[in-house]
């Protein structure tokens, strides 16, 4: 008899964004995720913005690690590794992001984990993967977006290539970590043996850009910056911000534009096709702009969508939090996070109709040492205290 996601035992030795993003989803659907951090410093993402004003508490860390239990273990010590392997022995899944040069010394290589548990599903997430000449190379979000080909396609010609907001490369990898974890787990369950996934952030980003890579492979074409800027296919300034005005292709959509923008001159036959609109771009823009700049972004979004036009509001966080659609769907999670207060944040990335999603606070550093080492590993309070005293936990 195998268990489902609820109660699935996950040992999470990841830090930063990619790994914690994946295990956050497992925790939200009811897995028992035990987050293992270094004693003292903890996960470096405990300092990632946004930090609650007047405190040292990162709200982003709290979002990435909500619903997990937290323990500390020094994996450079034998006692720390022993405790880790005892946790692994009773787990279904290990996800780790230890830098490759340290893996063996930390006892976190797949062979060591499989020795501790011959049916373990283990997943590594590192910037460049577990093999290859860049294996030990330093990286940060911007260099992953650069090497992964994202930056060359973003921004304006004549200005520097542009990084996308936030931690997109790491989050892309995080979605792949979730997928790889489920694949390794299903495989371990079906085969009765240990399996391992090696997830490289770089390759996850390259996968996402398959369309431009394929353009090169098929046509030897570089897709540069501004490649997508075209008439009626981009971001336009409007009355209270910006709106996405998108009319794809040469189909029937354009015929609804004169009605939406209240100007019959837009019905000119020359503008009917995508090619025509690009050719007469200045004229088209001049006819569209008076309507766009006199309307608010949300109004543009809803009025265009009422005509089945795929326009968008370029939303900021306050627009998102005020969305009636999200409210009605119960999208946001809310919980009281110690040190921060009420957290209202994006919830489940997807829904399963027979598997509820719920969030609870992220752990403080080593919050569950006693519960996990005592409750799961049968250590006495004295043994736990000795571990803490020795700096192992």
């Amino acid at each position: 008899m195998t268990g489902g996601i609820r109660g699935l035992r996950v040992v999470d030795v990841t830090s930063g964004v990619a790994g914690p993003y994946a295990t956050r989803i497992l925790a939200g659907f009811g897995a028992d995720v035990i987050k293992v951090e270094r004693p003292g410093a903890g996960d470096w993402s405990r300092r990632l913005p946004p930090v609650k004003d007047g405190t040292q508490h990162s709200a982003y860390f709290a979002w990435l690690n909500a619903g997990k239990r937290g323990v500390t273990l020094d994996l450079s010590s034998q006692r720390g590794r022993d405790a880790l392997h005892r946790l692994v022995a009773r787990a279904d899944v290990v996800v780790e992001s230890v830098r490759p040069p340290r893996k063996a010394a930390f006892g976190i290589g797949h062979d060591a984990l499989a020795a501790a548990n011959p049916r373990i599903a283990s997943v590594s997430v590192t910037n460049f993967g577990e093999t290859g000449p860049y294996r030990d190379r330093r990286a940060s979000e911007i260099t992953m977006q650069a090497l992964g080909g994202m930056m060359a396609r973003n921004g304006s010609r004549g200005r520097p290539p542009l990084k996308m907001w936030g931690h997109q490369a790491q989050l892309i990898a995080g979605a792949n970590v979730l997928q790889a974890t489920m694949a390794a787990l299903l495989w371990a369950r079906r085969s009765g043996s240990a399996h391992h996934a090696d997830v490289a952030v770089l390759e996850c980003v390259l996968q996402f850009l398959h369309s431009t890579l394929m353009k090169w492979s098929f046509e030897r074409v570089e897709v540069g910056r501004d490649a997508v800027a075209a008439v009626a296919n981009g971001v336009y300034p409007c009355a209270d911000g910006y709106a996405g005005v998108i009319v794809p292709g040469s189909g029937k959509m354009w015929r609804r534009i004169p009605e939406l923008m209240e100007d019959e001159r837009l019905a000119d036959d020359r503008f009917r096709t995508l090619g025509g609109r690009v050719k007469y771009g200045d004229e088209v823009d001049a006819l569209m702009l008076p309507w766009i700049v006199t309307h608010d972004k949300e109004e543009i979004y809803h009025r265009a969508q009422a005509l089945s036009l795929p326009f968008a509001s370029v939303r900021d966080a306050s627009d998102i939090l005020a969305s009636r659609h999200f409210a009605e769907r119960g999208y946001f999670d809310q919980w009281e996070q110690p040190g921060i207060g009420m957290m209202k944040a994006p919830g489940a990335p997807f829904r399963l109709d027979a598997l509820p999603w719920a969030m609870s606070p992220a752990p403080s550093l080593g919050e569950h040492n006693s519960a996990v080492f005592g409750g799961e590993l049968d250590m006495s309070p004295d043994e736990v205290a000795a571990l803490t005293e020795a700096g192992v936990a």
Partner: protein
Amino acid sequence: MPEQTALPLQGLRVLDLTTSWAGPWCTKALGDLGADVIKIEAVQAYDLTRGPTGREDWRAYARRGAERPYERADTFLKPNRNKRGITLNLKDARGVELFRRLAAISDVVAENYAPGEMERFGIGFDALRALNPRLVLLRMPAIGASGPERDYVGFGSTLEMLSGITGLTGYAGGPPMKSGFWYGDPISGTHAAGAVMMALIEREATGSGQVVEVAQIEALTGFAADAVLQQSVNGRLFERTGNRDLVHAPQGCYETADEDAWIAICAQTDAEWRALARIIGRAEWSDDPALATADNRHARAGEIDAAIAVWACERTQAAAERELADAGVTAGAVYLNRQIFEDAHVRSRSFFEEVTPPVAGTHEYPSSAYVLDGARLATRRPAPTLGEHNREVLGDLLGLGDDAIAALERDHVIGAEPLVDVWAG
């Protein structure tokens, strides 16, 4: 790297009604993992990534060659590998009946129609569940299957705008900028494959399938969670910062001596900053207590950026990258497609593979995003041609004889040639 011999999803069958990118991206992942994915198109309407369906637009695609252009589109060939392909006209009762028979012997049905469309075909999820309670049913509406905006149309680029990501991407002081690629689609597709496997694991425990809903906007908005939290926790909005980071400084993208060849640099630690100051010829900065912390350096970012830019523009991209690496400073070239294909690391991990679909010929394709048990998830079969496996699937799986298949072909319930006007010359 060696080739996979066994795969995690072997023996599972996926019926794939999805089109475009998000859905096929999900089912490709399931196919890569060994599932028998049966992609369902129609001769009346094929997957739109095969290319436009009107004569006029095809002129722009002429360089793909005159014969069967819909079998040559790179946009279709990559996301549909490791699938079999059949055609079924679901507006014909016989098409629906064949779909129902396939659903009865499948594990997953995936669709990304507008809400309500499956019901109109008579294959709504309630009906399918009654037919096969072990089915996992994946739906991928752009904005969600419920809520006031459920009928709205969303594309990768518009979802990116709604998610908050576009609003914060852009040069400081400039307008928001959307990404130069379809960002929303692969994000929801990647999540969806994980979600389907989650439902398959649940099925092992409960014996029942369930409905998985991936509202693309909800997966994507999580990628701007940091921005949402700044507002909900601190009552303020983040602003566009271009290439600068909120923590590390300096960080930026600098042009090298080669034309339009740039390098991204990020001093992740104070030690990296000191090393960077030395190699750009500003040794005095490395010991300057007024620049010792990232906070100090943020305040003087313009001045520091200018000094790095002067240094960078005097060396080639490759030389700059090497010097920074030797000094222990985090940096990476802004790679163009050609550089990605040539990169020694990427090649050493067998990220690209040669694939030869029957009409399009041989090209290099990106392979799977991750490695399982030391091996890439390779292309076991290229993307199917339209209706390529009609006989195999309807004959072998459902036991239809030659006469029955010929009758279906005659009535265009199935077929291998599009009925749409794709290439009248």
